[in-house]
């Protein structure tokens, strides 16, 4: 039974870590969350009821990430700090550094990082991990219609945020 989880986790370790990085924002927390997820998945292997195994694994990873985010927010509140700042700081340094293609990538990464969590995670699963609507719905535990509207909203926000960098197209598009 656990051989199944071992294999699943190893095969989709990049996917798990990538989701963790985009949700938690740093390497250390992402790695810890994926490790937690692996332990949890091994214990809960018998709750896997068939269906898409990658979605099942990523749903566990996401839960571990959300648990970390929640405790981070609690700590921040205890220290009377702003909650918003702890989640997804916009790295303006990244934006300024580099040129051309790498600069553009940095801008897109920064804007994706700055998106509200629910749109960010849907876009990461769809575009970076190439999951289908059905799989994303399984990972997030929401209906497919919700997945579609979050993707649409996330893309609209990103396009708006990237507006200045896209002056050539948007100049007449708007």
């Amino acid at each position, binding site marked *: 039974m*656990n051989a199944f989880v*071992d294999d699943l*986790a*190893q095969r989709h*370790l*990049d996917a*798990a*870590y*990538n989701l963790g*990085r*985009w949700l938690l924002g740093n*390497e250390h927390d*992402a*790695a810890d969350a*994926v*490790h937690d997820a*692996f*332990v949890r998945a*091994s214990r809960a292997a*018998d*709750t896997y*009821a*068939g*269906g*898409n195994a990658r*979605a099942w694994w990523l749903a566990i990873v996401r839960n571990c990430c959300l648990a970390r985010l929640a405790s981070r927010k609690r700590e921040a509140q205890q220290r009377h700090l702003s909650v918003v700042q702890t989640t997804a700081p916009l790295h303006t340094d990244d934006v300024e550094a580099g040129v051309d293609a*790498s600069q*553009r*990538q940095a801008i*897109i*990464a920064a804007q*994706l990082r700055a998106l509200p969590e629910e749109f960010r995670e849907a*876009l990461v699963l*769809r*575009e*970076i991990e190439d999951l*289908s*609507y*059905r799989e994303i719905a*399984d990972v997030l535990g929401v*209906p*497919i*219609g919700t997945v*579609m509207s979050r*993707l*649409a909203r996330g*893309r609209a926000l*990103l*396009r708006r945020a*990237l507006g200045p960098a*896209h002056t050539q*197209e948007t100049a007449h*598009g708007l």
Partner: protein
Amino acid sequence: MDCKTAQNLLEAYLDNELDRASARELEAHADTCADCSARLGQLDELRRALREPELRYRAPPQLRERVRAAASSSGQARARMPAWTRLAAACVLAFGAGASSIYMLDSTRAAHEDLTHDVFAAHWRALAATSPVDVVSSDRHTVKPWFAGKVAQAPLVRDFAEQGFALAGGRIDYVGSARVPVLVYRHGQHLIDVFVLPIPASLPNTAQREGYTLTATTLGAQPAAIVSDMDAAERARFADLLSSPSAP
């Protein structure tokens, strides 16, 4: 396809989530519509930017090592356990089994609810997509072979045009994580989807959402679900037709 419908389907098209008939209609529309083709271009550009490999973080080797170590240490722990810990573990497992069966009950109910939702959502998507079928045919000899290569078991396909329920075609849809054949019929202005379900699928006998009704029935030996906005009498008549023994 009109522009408003096309605009709503652009993202599903780029995400490869449209059935082939609608995808073709959308392409045909975008060829003649500057607005839609411009939006398609913008969405595609955003998508390519997000798919740059640099945006995907790779698991660091230390993490891979850590997971491997956790996997092998839990394996060894199981092997090395002394008798009394095994007994204790058995108690914990027994307790856990009780807890997980409660969990299972809950998750069965949730799965029930999810499947029902999937069936309705698939029906609504089909209605929105202007063409609700992938294979357009009123000939059962065309529809059945079309399914043969796409799902494990091609369903029983019959036309009931004489009784007022004309076969319009078929498509493949998702219910849960299973690909299921869907038979599409027309009755007057009503579009009827018949989802042919894998044997273990658990759906309620009837359910209603926003004016649409799901009715459980059987198609040959397979369970099936009818989704439509017909009234109760017509639904019952159609369910009887579907479950009636097929004429030789």
